[in-house]
């Protein structure tokens, strides 16, 4: 008898399960070493909680009614539930709060393109530490996590979600243009971005050229120096912040994993300030992401700086297999 399972889900058989458990254990081990405590939240939330966190993401949520007619949603990530948890439960506890998780989340994405609708994430949230040290601690733990799971070639892309808005405003663009063009940049549609900038009529051709070339700059620390003086006051001040972030990261000895990316905008609307993405040469999509999300905490009524990252377990496992020539155990026990 054949009993199908829904598209975008899968069974895990014993060999792979062992490897996944080892992967999770290595990551939790690193989180523990840095003083992060694991938490668990319910798989189902009130749909309001998910949409309060991120309206776009809420569109991908599986939603249904419970027996009282309340609209529920399967969680779409762990950051939103943890923001809810912190707001609700940690009022009396003195910050900073260091929390970690390993959990499955659910998104009703287009099936049939190797994208899972149930996927595993492991990550941390650091709430209540301000300044460049906040993101630097997150990057350090991220780098150590990549070491622990044996992904030597993985690279951490570092950008700042405010760079683009600052540049547009510096060059006299309207708030409306910031919104419209940010979507283009998040999708890295450079042709569409160029066309939008021309159509809105707010910029001279030379400025459009500058903007397009700046957001495509990516590489080592020299990228920062190259970008200096090419925008305006707001852009410079975001560059200052990015430079401070880079220095704080280098001071923790994990600078060699970093690639600066002046055009990075994460899809998730709740990021403010520094943003992160993780890439491995053997996987065609990002294997992790994160950044600073003060705005999300604010939406839940918590006035605290916050940052975190999440590693995507299935692509990481794939990268491990690739690295070990497909036959290896997945994780080095060392």
């Amino acid at each position, binding site marked *: 008898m054949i009993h199908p399972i829904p598209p975008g889900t899968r069974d895990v058989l014993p060999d792979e399960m062992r490897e996944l458990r080892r992967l999770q254990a290595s990551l939790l081990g690193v989180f523990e070493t840095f003083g992060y405590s694991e938490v668990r939240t319910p798989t189902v939330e009130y749909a309001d909680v998910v949409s309060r966190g991120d309206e776009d993401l809420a569109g991908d949520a599986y939603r249904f009614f419970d027996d009282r007619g309340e609209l529920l949603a399967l969680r779409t990530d762990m950051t939103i539930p943890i923001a809810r948890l912190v707001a609700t439960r940690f009022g009396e506890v003195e910050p900073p709060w260091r929390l970690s998780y390993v959990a499955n989340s659910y998104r009703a994405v*287009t099936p049939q*393109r*190797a994208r899972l609708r149930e996927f595993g994430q492991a990550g941390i949230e650091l709430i209540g530490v301000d300044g460049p040290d906040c993101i630097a601690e997150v990057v350090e733990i991220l780098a150590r996590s990549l070491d622990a799971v044996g992904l030597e070639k993985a*690279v951490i*892309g570092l950008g700042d979600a405010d760079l683009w808005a600052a540049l547009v405003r510096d060059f006299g663009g309207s708030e409306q243009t910031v919104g419209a063009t940010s979507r283009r940049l998040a*999708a*890295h*549609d*450079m*042709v*569409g971005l160029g066309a939008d900038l021309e159509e809105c009529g707010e910029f001279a051709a030379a400025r459009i050229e500058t903007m397009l070339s700046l957001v*495509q700059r*990516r*590489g080592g620390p020299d990228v920062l120096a190259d970008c200096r003086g090419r925008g305006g006051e707001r852009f410079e001040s975001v560059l200052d912040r990015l430079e401070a972030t880079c220095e704080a990261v280098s001071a923790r000895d994990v600078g060699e994993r970093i*690639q600066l*990316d002046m055009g990075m905008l994460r899809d998730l609307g709740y990021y403010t300030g520094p943003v992160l*993405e993780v*890439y*491995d*040469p*053997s*996987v*065609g*999509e*990002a294997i992790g992401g994160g950044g600073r999300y003060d705005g999300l905490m604010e939406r839940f009524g918590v006035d605290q700086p916050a940052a975190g990252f999440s590693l995507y377990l299935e692509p990481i496992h794939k990268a491990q297999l*690739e690295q070990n020539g497909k036959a290896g155990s997945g994780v080095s026990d060392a």
Partner: protein
Amino acid sequence: MLDSLSRPGGPLKVAVPRGALLEEVLGLLDRIGIDTAGVRSDSRSLVFDGGEVILVTMRPYDVPTYVEAGAADLGITGKDVLLEQEDRRVFELLDLKVGLCRMVLATRRGDTGPSEHQRRLGMMRIATKYPRIAEQYFEGRGRQVEVVEVKGSIELAPLVGLADGIVDLVATGRTLVENDLEEREQIVTCTARLVANQVSYRLRSDEIASLTSRLREAAG
């Protein structure tokens, strides 16, 4: 060469579209010093050594699929294909300005025109190979249509009464005229685009930036 194709590293893999776009695309690649002799030869191979890059040939419609998965680092395909597969996550880096075509709405010559249909029947039936582009176009204007997806010669649909009109890509418009069809509305113009895989874009940034800027110059 074939041995290492599925693994990362080595020369960049560029997906090149077979079909109408191929000739002009190869011309551009020639101009930036990539060896296209292999692709031009009548070989049945699909993978060619282009010198600094590996050229992988495929149908234009498949290019976003390969690039999104990272099986090709870069790809060249029409904007029509990218619009139709909008949810594929590929980075669109450059307008190559070749292969100019228009996506149009056409109906039979002498018909009263689509707006009259709309007024009288409230709804029209459109045959197309581009259901998503067609749906978005009409929906965005509050016009109700039934989109019928067909794979072969779209021109046939209105002639035998399958649909009131068609949405299709035209270069010269000759096929429309030959089939007694008339262009009514232009939906969008399309040219060939250079797209990149999101991870390759970051991890092989220098090579991709160099190729992009040379192609930009070659495309003028």
